[in-house]
């Protein structure tokens, strides 16, 4: 459900070269510069749909275009079938336009005096080898020129999906290699509902928080869902969320954060602070601030109560076993525990603990193989292909259960009934 671009929104721009960048439409009066692809007026993107393609006109206005449409040069596959590359000479010789001519036209296009489509058409018409190319090679030639000279770009919505792919292909270390299929499974396996109350830890740049927020919000309506994130450091580092266009106040309402180190109160947080023996306003102000911050932390701690959460979802840099042992008690019964890791090995100790414990059911570790294929049609598929070989990471899942009266007897019976690893044939 891609939305409409509004003033104040972030937009993920995909340029003809396939490079992406995030721009901020702070105000409608801005001119947005896309490097050598030229610049456009922010106002002309506002009110337009996300996930569509636009062409920069010489005036700096934008025209919505069909992203699949190529330059208007007819290529007849049948007629070209007899062509082959065998009599092509070195490519540099085949362009009739001089380097200087091309440079000049490029500058004209950049200044907005020449349509980039006209420029590409010029290049094609002055290429002596173009006619002799096969249909496929012709298309490739045009595509290459377009990547170089076209001013067509896509204005993508900075959704968890688009940002996940953006980071996975450009800076995978930022999101710890979470691939879109893995992210999607965290949502499903975590049974994320709009009104869930979920405990999380996100060391993936806020991608997990962002993905969850998307599944738990609708405009600025309160759907009841809440997230409680334990922070790696003293402050949150959820950059991905900042790039997503949540309505004002929504993130603050849904998301609570508490640093890992503050789960247990320090001694001065338990006992009330003595009122300073001073009339100095600065001292009193500082005191009031400390009292407030302690009260806030205590209120947050109160939310971290036994079996309070509808799930635990981790994409954390910390050890899964230690993390789970610390947090499991806050997870309700029959609620999922879902843990992402780039490395299977870090999940194994947690898995073994869960297998042996009567408090968990159905612990499993899985990996997903997702492959992208070239689509069997022409003119489409300008996307970089998702890495077929690389790993999208591993997921450990289990369900927390109430061992209750069966806890004592569970070790033999649970192995017999609930955990028939030996009989599994998957």
């Amino acid at each position, binding site marked *: *459900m*891609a*939305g409409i671009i509004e003033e104040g929104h972030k937009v993920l721009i995909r340029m003809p070269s396939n490079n992406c960048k995030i721009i901020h439409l702070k105000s409608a009066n801005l001119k947005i510069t896309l490097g050598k692809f030229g610049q456009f007026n922010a106002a002309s993107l506002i009110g337009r749909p996300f996930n*569509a393609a636009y062409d920069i006109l010489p005036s700096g206005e934008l025209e*919505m275009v*069909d*992203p*699949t449409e190529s330059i208007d040069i007819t290529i007849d596959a049948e007629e070209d079938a007899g062509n082959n590359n065998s009599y092509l000479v070195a490519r540099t010789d085949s362009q009739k336009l001089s380097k200087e001519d091309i440079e000049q036209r490029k500058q004209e296009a950049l200044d907005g005096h020449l349509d980039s489509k006209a420029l590409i058409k010029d290049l094609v018409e002055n290429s002596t080898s173009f006619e002799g190319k096969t249909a496929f090679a012709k298309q490739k030639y045009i595509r290459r020129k377009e990547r170089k000279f076209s001013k067509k770009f896509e204005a993508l919505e900075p959704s968890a999906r688009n940002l996940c792919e953006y980071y996975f292909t450009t800076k995978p270390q930022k999101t710890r290699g979470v691939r879109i*299929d893995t992210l*999607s*499974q965290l*949502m*499903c*396996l975590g*049974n994320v*509902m*709009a*009104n869930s109350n979920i405990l999380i830890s996100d060391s993936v740049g806020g991608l997990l928080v962002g993905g969850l927020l998307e*599944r*738990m*919000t*609708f*405009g600025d309506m309160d759907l009841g869902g809440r997230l409680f994130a334990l922070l790696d450091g003293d402050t949150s580092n959820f950059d991905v969320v900042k790039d997503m266009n949540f309505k004002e106040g929504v993130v603050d309402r849904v998301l609570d954060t508490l640093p890992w180190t503050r789960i247990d109160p320090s001694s001065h947080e338990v006992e009330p602070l003595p009122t300073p023996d001073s009339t100095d306003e600065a001292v009193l102000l500082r005191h009031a601030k400390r009292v407030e911050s302690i009260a806030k932390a205590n209120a947050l701690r109160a939310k971290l109560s036994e079996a309070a959460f*509808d799930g635990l979802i981790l994409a954390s840099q910390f050890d899964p076993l230690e993390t789970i042992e610390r947090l499991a008690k806050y997870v*309700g*019964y029959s*609620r*999922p525990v879902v843990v992402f890791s780039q490395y299977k090995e870090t999940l*194994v*100790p947690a*898995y*073994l*603990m869960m297998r*042996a414990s009567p408090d968990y*059911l*159905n612990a499993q*570790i*899985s990996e997903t*193989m*997702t*492959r*992208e*294929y070239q*689509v*069997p*049609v022409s*003119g*489409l598929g300008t996307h970089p292909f*998702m890495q077929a070989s690389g790993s999208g990471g*591993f997921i450990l899942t289990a369900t927390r*259960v109430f061992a*209750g009266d069966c806890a004592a*007897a569970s070790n033999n*019976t649970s192995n017999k*009934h*609930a955990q*028939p690893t*030996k*009989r599994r044939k*998957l």
Partner: protein
Amino acid sequence: MTAEKSLFTSYSKTIQDGDLVIAYVNPLDMSAIHVKKDAVLNNKYGAFLHNNIIGKPFGARVESVKGNGHIAFLHPSPELWTQTLPHRTQILYMPDIALVSEMLDLKPGAVVVESGTGSGSFSHSIARTIAPVGKLHTFEYHEERVLKFKDELVAHGLESIVEVNHRNVCSDGFGLEDVADAVFLDLPSPWEAIASAKQAFKKGKVGRICSFSPAIEQVQKTCLEMEKNGFYDVRMFETLIRRQDIKTIQKRPLPTRDVVTGHTNNNKSKKKPLAADEEKEKDNNGEEADVVVESDQANGALKEGQVIVSKTVARVAGHTSFLVFASVFVEGDKAVVTADAKTVAETAMDLEDGSNAGDESNAGKRKRSMTDDGQKS
């Protein structure tokens, strides 16, 4: 927000009379049952009185009458429903469901069009993800499947979110205009539904479509039809989940020779392999199986010569289906509207005559064939 309570769209802590619960024995032995006062669940682990289940927290392990076994009663979720639902057709499973949901940007408030409904596996997941303000219009031309699914919707409290339509979408279209954010097609000939699907999309916005087909010929026709109708950003994926098999085994030292007798000592573990692994042993082309040991795994203590190993479990079905995704923009003259929050009518749940889903078991994943319209053999 809806006042109606569905266990598929909100969590509940305690099992109540009439609730749908998942009786969990092991990953391959789960069933969905409706809890009913004075009823009894009988299975090979004994008899379980529903009265002993009512009032317990979801996720409780409950003892059988004779105390010779216990099973856990879990809160339903679309993922568990997929594993326990009565199969009327072939169905979508979690890895595909997850990827499709994400790639179609499903979230609360989304309006989704789906065909065919089949066994409603994906429909339940869609409902969970778009609730409480979204809407699913699902289309199925097989009348009995429509009726069965209608019953399920009532029993599961989902009627306010899901609307089932009895219709042949290939010959008669969806009959919808300007409503959908996303369309999902799981049909034998999806290309016949593309043009009508386009009509269904909200105007003035970019919508998303996905077609799920097992055969490349279907994909080809569908892609061409998409291209003809102005769909763009066409991408195709295939996704497979690989479970990891993790165990502790005994390391095998090199063979040694007895200096006195001259006999070779194979240094076989004295321990007999666990019964369940004997079968595996035979499968191994005469090679001796690794000795799996039950270590004191809770504290990770490994005994001398033991090692924890993992391997990817080989899956029989190497390929499920191709997922083709695309975007589409339908021009519209009307002003941009943000989907308005629907006030959903209050509907009482009638759980008493719910379906006896618990009797059916998961028939497992089978390979789809191109012409199969999903009928269970």
